[in-house]
């Protein structure tokens, strides 16, 4: 549809503008990468624990842990590099009136408010590290790296990122009622770390909740399970359907949130 092509073209312009903007603040760019490396170190620590303990985790070897965490880091590239900072900035946008101005433009408000900003430094750090970790892990497991498996991995990774976007959008739609949305973003952010360990680590109830109710595990565990050839049939189906379901839910929450904003803000 024309609208989709328009938004895609505008997204490319936005990426370009973001990169140019970021280059203006070299200190921020460099320290931002340092910060992301810090977060990366914490994620890798979980792998260090796995290797240091020298035992399997619910049937998953340390090498498989490496694939999991690598996938997690790659998914973080989308999360932190593409959409998370927009959620953190949402209340600033509302407070300084830019949100109002965006509302009057003939472009999807949800698109602009949630995807306007991106961070190329974070994206590159995480995607590089994540892909490297995943490939090392997979190759150590006697490399099952055929093209189909890789394609499917990428597919489920993208589906997972779409679900991640939707999951983070839903609580942010509350920003129109609650004054400081950074707090919500902070809590949501901590939920992201549930993917630092393979979902198998949680008990059956936790896994069910995290797969079907609040599908965090769809984001990272599903792609990893696929690459490792350990995905069940149900998970395969749900992994492909979940993005559609949750994007629709997020859209609903967002439009309701806008409605509340226009009706009750001061």
């Amino acid at each position, binding site marked *: 549809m024309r609208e989709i092509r328009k938004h895609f073209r505008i997204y490319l312009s936005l990426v370009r503008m973001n990169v140019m903007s970021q280059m203006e*603040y070299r*200190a*921020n*760019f*460099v*320290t*931002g990468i*340092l*910060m992301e*490396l*810090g*977060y990366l*170190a*914490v994620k890798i*620590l*979980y792998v*260090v*624990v796995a290797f*240091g*303990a*020298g*035992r*399997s*985790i*619910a049937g998953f070897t340390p090498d498989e842990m490496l694939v999991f965490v690598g996938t997690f880091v790659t998914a973080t590239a989308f999360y932190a590099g593409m959409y998370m900072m927009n959620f953190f900035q949402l209340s600033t946008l509302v407070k300084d009136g830019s949100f109002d101005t965006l509302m009057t433009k003939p472009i999807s408000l949800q698109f602009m408010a949630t995807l306007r900003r991106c961070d190329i430094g974070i994206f590159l750090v995480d995607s590089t590290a994540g892909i490297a970790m995943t490939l090392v892990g997979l190759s150590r497991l006697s490399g099952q790296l055929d093209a189909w498996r890789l394609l499917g991995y990428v597919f489920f990774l993208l589906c997972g990122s779409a679900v991640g976007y939707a999951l983070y959008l839903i609580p942010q739609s509350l920003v129109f009622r*609650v*004054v*400081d949305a*950074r*707090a*919500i973003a*902070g*809590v949501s*952010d*901590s*939920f992201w*770390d*549930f993917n*630092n*360990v393979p979902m*198998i*680590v*949680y*008990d059956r109830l*936790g896994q069910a909740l995290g797969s079907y109710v609040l599908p965090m595990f769809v984001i990272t565990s599903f792609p990893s399970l696929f690459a490792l050839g350990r995905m069940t049939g149900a998970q395969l189906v749900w992994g492909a359907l979940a993005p559609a379901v949750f994007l629709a839910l997020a859209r609903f929450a967002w439009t309701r949130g806008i409605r509340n904003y226009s009706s009750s803000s001061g």
Partner: protein
Amino acid sequence: MAEAGGKYLGSFSLGLRGALEYRANFVFSLLGAVAPVVIQTALWTCLYAPGSGAGSSGDRLFGFTYAQMLGYVVVANIVSRLVRTGFEYDLNDDIKSGGLDRFLVKPIDYFGFRMAQFAGAKSAETAFMGLTLAIALVVLSAATGFSASHLAALGFVAALALAFFLNFLVFWCVGLLGFWLAEIGFLFEAARIVIITASGGIFPLSVFGPSVGSALAVLPFRFTIQFPTDVLCGRVAGADLAWGLAAAAAWSGLLLVLARAIWAAGLRRFVALGS
């Protein structure tokens, strides 16, 4: 003397009121502590589970039994939130905006002002967190038979007080970087993550292995999170506890000297450059 106390009390009250105003924020930050506890508990449960290559119930990983590790997870995460700072950004703002000038003219010591405000904000949080910790310990004892002796609790309070002071000093020094760096960007956040990790706030320092782990144990950071946690969990007692508190106090003294020195150097530069 009362007058001198008065202005610091004012800063204390300011910090307290500020903390109360942002109560929603505070509750949310507390909720943010839930995730790591859940994640790590699940992880360790799997690692200590029989049939994963483990041994008996006395099984030890990185020097902890299962029960001990769970205790560490809960207490360390709470302590980590307790000793957390944030004033380094305000400190940097004062340096950058030249707002420091205000304080240099007033008869109030900037360091004292910041510390009093920190203490004020922390009192509000600690009261609340203390309750959370108590509840968490009750749950822990029901689940794993955790218990803390009275001496351990007392030692914990002492270690925690030192941890507050020490963490304040560490991040005070971090904040002082603002005197030399034109833009700090995300440096403070990067420093915070590294420091928390080095303090044992994510995992106990022993997971780093014998060489790195013992290197980290020499640094002052472990006294902000790992040490108070170990004290409460009863892993450090008797003479070790006394030595530990002394070491924490010694580090505090050293960092205080360092802080004053950096402050003086920074102030010279600040005044010379006319901010």
